């Protein structure tokens, strides 16, 4: 320590602090050595993690980033993409179907929640109350989930057929007039919601059942001893105990139903009179019928943002509810 600068530096702190620094420095050194050792020991794990990250980056994140970029570009896949700013969004807002698609999607989501949320929960409660043939009924409820969505849609298309379809034949057999189901703009959307609820309620019911299974039996016994009937047990035991699962499923269901595509694509093609054109169906048309990938990406970005905002708001709301 011959240089005046270093000596002054060393001399500057008070003696007490320089005494305190010495062990701190060696502690840091020890920590650094431990970290190095840890990294060396886990090199294989990091290697594998990197490979996973590369795969994620290539197949999950890159397409998302590319999609966002595409929504501000015009592409013909021959020449370099050209930046068009918000032109794609403007085009969407000028499309008369754009508003219709959002309205229809929100209507589908609303109706799907009314049926798709309540029906599986009630089914799960009923299944949970069963004393016999539990496995059979669980399987029976889950069965529709095993059908491929397109098969489900085609099958229900026949059910709804206003001519020789199952529903109208059954109604006709008891002397009732048949309905137009998918062929009327006032009933088409509701008909699609039924199909979607029927096809998906199995999985939701099973999740509810699993949640119900975690409720300690003593709570019900105690409630029963206090003279609580079915409704009171539901209100004071079942709902509070399954609240978290209910909230998570609500979020998942909104996110899933806002992306409805198969049912309108296969069963109505968006008709009649555009009453079942959904956001995803319009997005599909932009991409694969009009070959306008810029506008299609812009539309998916809008949906992504809408769902993102909803999810954030929802998470905040539930956190607040938890705290209170």
């Amino acid at each position, binding site marked *: 320590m011959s240089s005046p600068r270093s000596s002054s530096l060393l001399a500057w702190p008070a003696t007490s602090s320089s005494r305190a620094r010495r062990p701190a420095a060696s502690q840091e050194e020890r920590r650094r050595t431990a970290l190095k050792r840890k990294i060396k020991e886990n090199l294989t794990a990091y290697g594998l993690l990197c490979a996973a990250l590369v795969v994620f980056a290539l197949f999950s994140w890159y397409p998302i980033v590319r999609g966002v970029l595409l929504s501000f570009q015009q592409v*013909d896949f021959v020449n370099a993409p050209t930046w068009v700013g918000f032109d794609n969004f403007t085009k969407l807002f000028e499309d008369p179907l754009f508003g219709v698609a959002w309205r229809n999607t929100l209507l589908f989501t609303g109706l799907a929640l009314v049926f798709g949320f309540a029906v599986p929960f009630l089914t799960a409660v009923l299944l949970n109350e069963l004393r016999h043939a539990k496995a059979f009924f669980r399987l029976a409820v889950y069965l529709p989930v095993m059908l491929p969505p397109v098969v489900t849609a085609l099958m229900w298309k026949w059910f709804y*057929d206003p001519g020789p379809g199952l529903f109208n034949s059954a109604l006709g057999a008891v002397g009732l007039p*048949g309905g137009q189901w998918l062929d009327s703009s006032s009933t088409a959307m509701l008909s699609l919601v039924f199909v979607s609820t029927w096809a998906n309620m199995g999985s939701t019911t099973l999740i509810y059942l699993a949640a119900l299974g975690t409720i300690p039996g003593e709570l019900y016994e105690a409630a029963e001893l206090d003279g609580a009937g079915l409704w009171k047990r539901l209100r004071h035991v079942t709902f509070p105990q399954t609240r978290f699962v209910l909230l998570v499923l609500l979020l998942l269901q909104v996110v899933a139903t806002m992306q409805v595509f198969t049912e309108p694509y296969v069963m109505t*093609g968006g008709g009649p*009179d*555009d009453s079942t054109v959904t956001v995803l169906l319009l997005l599909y048309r932009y991409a694969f019928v009009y070959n306008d990938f810029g506008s299609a990406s812009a539309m998916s970005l809008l949906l992504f943002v809408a769902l993102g905002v909803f999810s954030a708001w929802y998470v905040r709301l539930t956190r607040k509810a938890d705290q209170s």
Partner: protein
Amino acid sequence: MSSPWSRTATRRMFCLLAAGGLALTAAACGDGDTAAQSGGKVKITVTGQPPTSQPFERSVFDADVKEFEASHPNIQIEPHEGFMDPKTFSAKLAGGQLEDVYYVYFTDPAQIIARHQAADITEAAKSVPHVNDIKPELLDNFRDANGKLYGLPTMNYTMGLLYSRPLFQKAGLDPDKPPQTWDEVREAAKKISALGNGVVGYADYSKNNQGGWHLTGWLYSMGGDVARKDGDKWVADFANEKGKQALQYLHDMRWTDNSMGAKQLLEAQDVQRMMGAGQLGMYMAAPDNVPVLVKQFNGKYEDYGIAGMPGGQGTLLGGEGYMINPKASPEKVKAGLEWIQWKYLNPDRFEKHIQQYVDGKQPVGLPAEPTPDVWTGSVREQQLALKAKYANVPAKNFQSYVDTTSRIKGSIEPPNAQQIYAALDSVMQAVLTDQSANIDQQLSSASSKVNSVLAQVK
């Protein structure tokens, strides 16, 4: 070191990963041009090979490839199965996987040209034999606003009225005198649907852009139009008396006469199924529907007839053709044009091609395959004479169609056709599914949608 891999080994692993990624990207982007021209041969990839589920068509195609390669030793053909799939077209183009010679429907060239997704063949096509014998309106479908050519038509159809001869007979109608006006269609439909047992007199499409396509046919048949040029711009041209008249017919047949059945939102397959099952009297179609009905539903050619488009003031021309990849080298463009001309536009092979169909017990004499009606002048006469010579289906059942189509005006599909058809689908759906649909309001709403589509036409 406690790690099982040395530092060098780890580095190597990362290098390999990176190299693998680069190789994947390169493979996805490369068009294989260097390999394609090895040994002095030009190798071209072509679409249009029929799937194996159509063994006859497939065998003819494969035999043609062999024959072409034998007579053109400098060209090698790599056939790819399938035709036009709009869902994968852009992805293939982006990934460098689009074939050198690719199939298109008449609805698509305008958009493809506007997006620079096809090679300019104006100069190269000048040396193609018989190119001047092709109907000019079909070639125009492959031209841009400056008259440059980007593809060649290889097949075309003209819309007419397909009908079931047995149902005509059952309903007391003369199958040799099919309806010539929409009033006559309406009357015939009433009589056919009166047969009961779920029989439908007349059916029409209203889903997946096919409703708009058929409404265009209706408009043309009444002397109307979908879009017209107003100076430099295209504008919608159907919110008028012609449009109203067409929709009123459909509305009245559906709701007043009840001759269109209760089930709507139909598309081609639904209607073909109804016709194949003997449950449908008539629908608007091109002659290429007849072999489909016969093959898929074990029907007989004798059971079907085609009349010219009712109304007689015009009809819709559609069809298909081939365009060339804009990334193809000049050698490939030249080879591609040779293939298209030799395989699809070759009067010297008319007789041989017809013979292939006769030997394969396929229909000859329909106003469709094996030699589509893309020709004009003496080549057309030559083709008609050969077809008549080898006809093995009752050609008289299609005579009314042939007579009418040569007399009435044929109009090709509007620009940005698929988008316009999507907008018009909802009009068809409204009229066919809502008895109290307001036709004026529907037309005006569709007109504003179509105008916004046409505003994008370059």
